[in-house]
């Protein structure tokens, strides 16, 4: 992995990144919205990378992350299988969010923060020397705790924003926006007021709008950092249903403080403590018969 200090989205794009953007534009103006487009982005980001159309897994190998001198993530190795939901659980400060923010290279945006180790999206080295950070974030979408629709934009434009950046023609936009809103179960609720501001929606609707915005550009991986913790119970359940549907097409990593949420949505669950992975196993195993005593104590509420 590159020395992360030298890698930031503000750095001038490398030649390879230039090429990436151009190719994406070309692909997009051709109106090609198939999964191959996302793959093309990835291939462009690293020539020769990428195989097949099926899901794309993420592998973390010996990841270490720091905030200045503070060693926040210690030798973390996690395999996030394609088309599965993996939940990260653990007490506050255990490093769950930092792990997720390393995956799409958001960690390095924090002054003094750096990461070492290897993160592979299939065979694309996310921290590789010629990788364009913007391209990485297009492949690895993120949904945050607090719904954050673009405040000045309409519902339609919120979803269309990412598509416009990738150069989608306006005649395709409407179909793609509708498709994305349908994917998150929001279409019927908003189809008659697409031009109204996104922030006029309820919290749960706003969060689904943000997920629609994320899926609109067809990422390969969706990272979710506490996506439902600011929502009411019904909206929470809707998001959980949605996660279950989205895993058909995407690889999902979810950070949650709500252990029951992890139990409900995740195929496998990672328990983290003080920057280390204590246990990673099938969700069923973690919640019925965890192997590590610390996992047992955490999930049963004997400490936390």
């Amino acid at each position: 992995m590159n020395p992360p200090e030298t890698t930031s989205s503000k750095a001038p794009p490398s030649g390879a990144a230039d090429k990436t953007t151009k190719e994406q534009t070309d692909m997009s103006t051709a109106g090609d919205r198939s999964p191959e487009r996302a793959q093309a982005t990835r291939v462009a980001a690293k020539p020769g990378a990428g195989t097949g159309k099926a899901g794309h897994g993420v592998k973390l190998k010996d990841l270490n992350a720091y905030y200045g001198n503070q060693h926040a993530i210690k030798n973390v190795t996690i395999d996030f299988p394609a088309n599965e939901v993996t939940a990260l659980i653990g007490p506050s400060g255990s490093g769950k969010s930092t792990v997720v923010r390393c995956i799409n290279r958001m960690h390095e945006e924090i002054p003094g923060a750096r990461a070492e180790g290897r993160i592979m999206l299939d065979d694309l080295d996310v921290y590789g020397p010629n990788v364009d950070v913007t391209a990485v974030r297009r492949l690895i979408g993120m949904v945050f705790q607090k719904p954050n629709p673009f405040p000045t934009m309409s519902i339609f434009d919120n979803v269309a924003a990412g598509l416009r950046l990738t150069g989608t023609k306006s005649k395709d936009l409407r179909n793609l926006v509708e498709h994305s809103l349908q994917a998150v179960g929001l279409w019927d609720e908003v189809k008659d007021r697409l031009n109204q501001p996104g922030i006029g929606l309820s919290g749960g609707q706003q969060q689904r709008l943000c997920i629609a915005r994320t899926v609109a550009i067809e990422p390969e991986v969706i990272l979710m950092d506490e996506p439902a913790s600011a929502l009411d119970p019904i909206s929470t359940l809707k998001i959980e249903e949605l996660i279950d549907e989205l895993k058909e097409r995407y690889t999902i990593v979810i950070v949650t403080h709500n252990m029951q949420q992890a139990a409900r949505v995740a195929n496998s669950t990672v328990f983290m403590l003080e920057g280390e992975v204590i246990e990673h196993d099938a969700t069923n195993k973690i919640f019925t018969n965890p192997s590590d005593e610390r996992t047992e104590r955490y999930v049963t509420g004997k400490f936390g």
Partner: protein
Amino acid sequence: MHETRHKFHENLRALEVQALDGLDIVIQQLDRALESISYQDVELAGMVVADDDRIDGRYLEVHQGILSLLARQAPVATDLRIVAALLHVIRCVERMGDQCVNIAKLVPLSGYEAPKDKDILDAIERMGRLARSQVSQAKQAFADRNTELAHDLLRQDAEINRLNREIFRRAVEVGDNLDMREWAMFMILVARCLERIGDNTVDIAEQTVFVVTGLFREFADASTPSEAARPL
């Protein structure tokens, strides 16, 4: 490191005590059922039948407690295994209670005269003592999460099964007297009830091992080949 779900764990422990104390009621019922057989005490047998309401009541209390714990506390890991095991244990308690009633109900049917055959009665009494000791040991094994004690129940249960077969053979050879034969047939049924109580204690032992290890393995008991040829 402090416990964050203190109240929940208190509730869970109380629920376990409530379920396991059901085994004490079973022992009381079993003692009286056996006494009513030994002394042909029809009145005492009637009390055993009537008192089964206590066990049924305990079953309903624990069952309700488990449901509300599941609904409100969503137990996981060892807690979840304990809850699942208690559901099983309380069912065993209820069934053992029913077996005591079955024994007691045989008392008036088998006549108002003294027991007819000393060998059979001795074997029944020995089975009764073994069954009683097994119920008590099952309780202790579960409460202490003692897998060795749990596995030891198998050894004891083999003896109950052996006595069950012995009583059957003895009953077949008991002679031509009609009353005698009829009484012996009833004793076969009593032995069968005691044998079932033994099996229930083995079930509780299996649940003990499940709580401790997270793995459910049925102990090799009545279904092993050597037992397949048993008469009942």
